[in-house]
C-alpha cells in the first residue's frame, strides 16, 4: 500500500503549493516557450498587452483594452487564491499560538505578536536547519548544473537511437515515485546488508554508515537528490542546445574554431537563458529541500539532515505548533524571494 502520501501522492494543486513558489511556476511557464530562443519577458508581463491595445480590433478601443486582462484573469485569480491568500493566512497564523486545540476551538487562540519569530531566531535547531540547508544548496546547485549541462552536451552529439534511449535513461529518475526511490536507495545505502557496503567489503574496506554517520548522511542524501533532479535539467539544456541554429556552428567552423572554442564562445553564451532558468529553479528547489531527507533519514541522524522545510514540517505536524511552523515558513519564503530577486537583478544587469 502507499503509505507515504506526504512524499509521493501529493496533489499538485494543493492549496498552498504555489504559495512559496509562485514566482517559480511563473518562470517555468515562461521558459518552456522561450528557453534558449529569445528574451525573457519575466518582468514585463504587460508587454503583449500593450501591443494588443495598439492594434484596435473590431470591438473598438475600450473593449480591446480589457480583453488581455480577461485572458489573464483566471491565472491571476488562481494565483491570488492559492498563492497569495495562503501566504497572508500563514503570516497571520505566525503571530498566534495556533495548535490543534485552536483548530478545534478558535476561541483558545492567543495573539503572540512577534514572539514566534523571536523564539525561532533563538532556537538552535532552526539555525542548524538553516546551516544544513545552506550546505545542501552549496553542494547541490553547482553539481546539478555542471552535471546536467555536461550530460546534455554529450547527448547532443548524435540523434541516433542509442542516444534517444540514453536520454530516456537520464530522465527516468525524475519520473520515479519518491517512495520507490527511497526504498531502492535505502537498500543500497544500508549499513548492514546494503550493496555499497557489500562492494566495499569485497575490496576489503570497512562498512560505511552511509545514512547513519551525520556527515556522510548529508552527502548521501544530497547524492540522491542530485540523481533525481538531473534528468529534468538535462532535458531543458538539451532543448536549448537543439534550438541553437546550425549557422552559428558553421560560422565558427569557418573561422577555424575548435570544439572547445565553439562551445566556450558560441554555444555557452547562447545557453544563458536556459542556464538562468535552471539556476533559479534548482536554487529554489534546494532551498525547499525536503523529500529526500524526509524519506531516507527523517532528518536524522541526530538532526544532521534536517533542512529548514523539514524543521517546519516537524514543528507543524509532529508537534502541532502551527503558529511556530508558520513563522518558519514565512522566513523561508522571504529567504527564497530575496535570493530569487537577487538573481533576477544580476541577470538584468548583464543583459
Amino acid at each position, binding site marked *: 500500500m502507499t503509505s507515504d502520501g506526504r512524499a509521493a501522492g501529493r496533489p499538485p494543486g494543493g492549496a498552498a*503549493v504555489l504559495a512559496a513558489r509562485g514566482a517559480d511556476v511563473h518562470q517555468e511557464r515562461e521558459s518552456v516557450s522561450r528557453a534558449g530562443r529569445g528574451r525573457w519577458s519575466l518582468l514585463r508581463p504587460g508587454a503583449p498587452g500593450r501591443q494588443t491595445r495598439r492594434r484596435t480590433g473590431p470591438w473598438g478601443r475600450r473593449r480591446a483594452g480589457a480583453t488581455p486582462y480577461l485572458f489573464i484573469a483566471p491565472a491571476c485569480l488562481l494565483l491570488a487564491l492559492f498563492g497569495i491568500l495562503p501566504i497572508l493566512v500563514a503570516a497571520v497564523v505566525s503571530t498566534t499560538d495556533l495548535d490543534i486545540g485552536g483548530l478545534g476551538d478558535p476561541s483558545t487562540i492567543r495573539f503572540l505578536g512577534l514572539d514566534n519569530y523571536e523564539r525561532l531566531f533563538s532556537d538552535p535547531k532552526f539555525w542548524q536547519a538553516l546551516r544544513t540547508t545552506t550546505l545542501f544548496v552549496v553542494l547541490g546547485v553547482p553539481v546539478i548544473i555542471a552535471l546536467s549541462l555536461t550530460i546534455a552536451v554529450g547527448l547532443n552529439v548524435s540523434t541516433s537511437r542509442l542516444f534517444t534511449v540514453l536520454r530516456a535513461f537520464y530522465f527516468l529518475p525524475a519520473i520515479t515515485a519518491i517512495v520507490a526511490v527511497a526504498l531502492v536507495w535505502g537498500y543500497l545505502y544500508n549499513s548492514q546488508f546494503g550493496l555499497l557496503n557489500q562492494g566495499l567489503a569485497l575490496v576489503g574496506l570497512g562498512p560505511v554508515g552511509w545514512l547513519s554517520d551525520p556527515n556522510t548522511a548529508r552527502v548521501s542524501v544530497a547524492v540522491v537528490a542530485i540523481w533525481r533532479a538531473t534528468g529534468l535539467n538535462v532535458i531543458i539544456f538539451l532543448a536549448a542546445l537543439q534550438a541553437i541554429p546550425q549557422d552559428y556552428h558553421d560560422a565558427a567552423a569557418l573561422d577555424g574554431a575548435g570544439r572547445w572554442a565553439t562551445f566556450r564562445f558560441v554555444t555557452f553564451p547562447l545557453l544563458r537563458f536556459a542556464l538562468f532558468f535552471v539556476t533559479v529553479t534548482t536554487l529554489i528547489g534546494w532551498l525547499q529541500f525536503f*523529500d529526500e531527507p524526509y524519506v531516507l533519514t527523517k532528518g536524522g541522524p541526530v538532526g544532521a539532515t534536517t533542512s529548514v522545510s523539514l524543521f517546519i514540517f516537524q514543528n507543524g505536524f509532529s508537534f502541532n*505548533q502551527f503558529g511556530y511552523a*508558520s513563522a518558519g515558513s514565512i522566513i523561508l519564503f522571504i529567504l527564497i524571494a530575496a535570493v530569487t530577486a537577487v538573481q533576477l537583478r544580476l541577470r538584468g544587469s548583464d543583459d
Partner: protein
Amino acid sequence: MIMNKPIARVLLAPAVAGALLLAGCGGSSEATGGGQTPEPKEDVTLTVWVMGDSGTNFEKVVQPFTADTGIDVKVEAIPWDNVNDRLTTAVASGKGPDVTQVGLSLLASYVEGGALEDISGNLASYPNLAPENFPEAVAPASLHADGAAYTVPWVGDTRVLFYRSDILEEAGIDAPPATWDEIRADAKTLAARGKGQFGYYIPQWDAPLPVSYTWQAGGDVVDGEGKVTIDTDAFRAAADHYLGFYADGSVPTAGDFDQAAGFISGAAPMLVSGPYLAAAVREQAPDLDGKWGVTTVPSGDNDMSLFAGSNLGIWKGSEHKDAALELLDFMADPATQVSWFTTTGELPAATAAFEDPALTKDPMVAVYADQLASSRALPISTRWDAANAAILETLNAIALTGADKDSSLKALYATIEEINAR
C-alpha cells in the same frame, strides 16, 4: 517541479483554519450537542476510521455486528503516516467519522483538538466497556486527569525482551537477563563474538525507550499536573543505562540497522520490541523456531514496559452516538477481541480474552499478558511529544556524536523548561 513543497503542508492546515475563522464559524464547537435523537437503526451507517492496513480485517470482523443490529459500518482505511493530516483537516472542518481508531501515541492530538466525545457517562450502560475489563494502564483515570473518558481500549500492545536462546547458550548464558545489570553484562559478552556482532539493539527512533527505563528506575517523567519533570535521579539512571550500552560497544551505532534482519542473522541477539516482531520472525525465518523466545523486560527497580495499543473513540458531534457506543461495546466484547486476534495477530485489550484457548495455546502470548499487566502508556499531551523528541535527540547526540553528557543534559533540562512554559 524538481523538489516538493513541504511548506504547502504547513500552510494548508492553518489556511483551512484561517478560512474558518474568516467565515466566522467555529469548527466542531458548533457541532457539539445532539447525537441523542433516537432513530431506526436499520438506516444507520457508521463511518469508521481504521489505521494502517487493518481496514479489510475490520470489515470482516464487524460482519456479525451488522447482521445483529442492522447498523452498517463503512470503513475508511487511513495509512499511519497520514493520520495527523486527516485529523487536522477533520478537526478544522468539523467533519469527521463517527468512530475512529486512536493509536495511543496520537490520543493527545485527538483530545486537544476536541475531536472526541466524552463518554464517561455512558460506560455504565455497556457491560463490555467497564474500565475494570481492561489493564489499568489504559483505564480512563490513568489516561486523563480531568475524569473524562474519550476512548475505550481496543488493541493491546507492549514491548518485551526478545532473545536468541541458541546464541546466548553458545556464549555461556543459560537464561535471558532479568535485571539491568545482567543485560548490560550479557550484551557485552555477546558483542565480543566479533566484528559486526552486537549484544543488544537500541532503535534510534524509539522515543518511548528512555521513558520505560525511567519507569524501570522507579521514576516518572511527568508530575501530577502534567508538567514534564526529568531533572531527576530516575531519569539520570535511565540515561546512564541507555548510554551504557553504547559505551560498552554492545549496540550498533548505525541508524538504519534493521531489527528483524539483525535478530534473524543473530547480529543483535537481544532486543526489546513488540509482538509484530514475533510475527515477522516466524514468517521470515521459520527454521529459527525453538531457537528464540520472549520474556518480560529486565528490571531496574521494576519491569515496567510501554503500553502501546490502540483505542476506539466517538467523534464529537457524531449523529449516531448510540449506534457508535454499540459498536464500541461489540469491539470490546471478549469474543470479538479473540476474533480480532485470530484475524490480525494483534493482542486483545480486554483481559478476559487472554483466557481463550486461541490465545493460551501460544506460550508467547502468556508473556505478553504478563508484560501488559506491568505496562504504562506515555503521557497524553502534545507538549509531551516535543519533550520526548528532545530527550531522544539529546541521548542519541551523546551516544553517537560524542557530545558532552553533562552539558547536553543541562541543555535538555532547559529545553524541557521552555516546553513546559508553552
